């Protein structure tokens, strides 16, 4: 799926790729980031 022009919820995770890093990838792929979260599974 092409991200360009899409609205993206960046749902990162503390033990994986954090939300801000996911969001930066989405942004640089041409998407608009509408929410950034970093979940934490324990």
């Amino acid at each position: 799926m092409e991200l360009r022009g899409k609205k993206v919820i960046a749902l990162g995770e503390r033990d994986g790729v954090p939300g801000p890093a996911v969001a930066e990838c989405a942004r640089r792929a041409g998407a608009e980031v509408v929410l950034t979260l970093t979940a934490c599974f324990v």
Partner: protein
Amino acid sequence: MGLEDQAAVKRVADEHGSGVVVLLGTPDAESTQTLAQTVVVGDPSYAGPLAGVPLGLPVLHVFEVRDQVPVDVYEAQVGLMEMSLDRDAILAGLREARRVAAT
């Protein structure tokens, strides 16, 4: 997913409608399946604001969009984690979540 996070996802999905895509940065198959299920068919624990709320949002993992991101950005933001995590298992978990959502 925490209750506050579920509430935030629901609010944003309601505001922006069906054009929203969820991009995951989960570290294993289990968390990938759980988060994907939560934003597609609803909270599997039936505890949060997304319980019984099938948002039906398209879900991708950040590993799947590598080709759409400038190489230097991807390497800086994701490269190290992609090397240390089990990429195949994560993407298999996402495929399974999509299969379950489609049935």
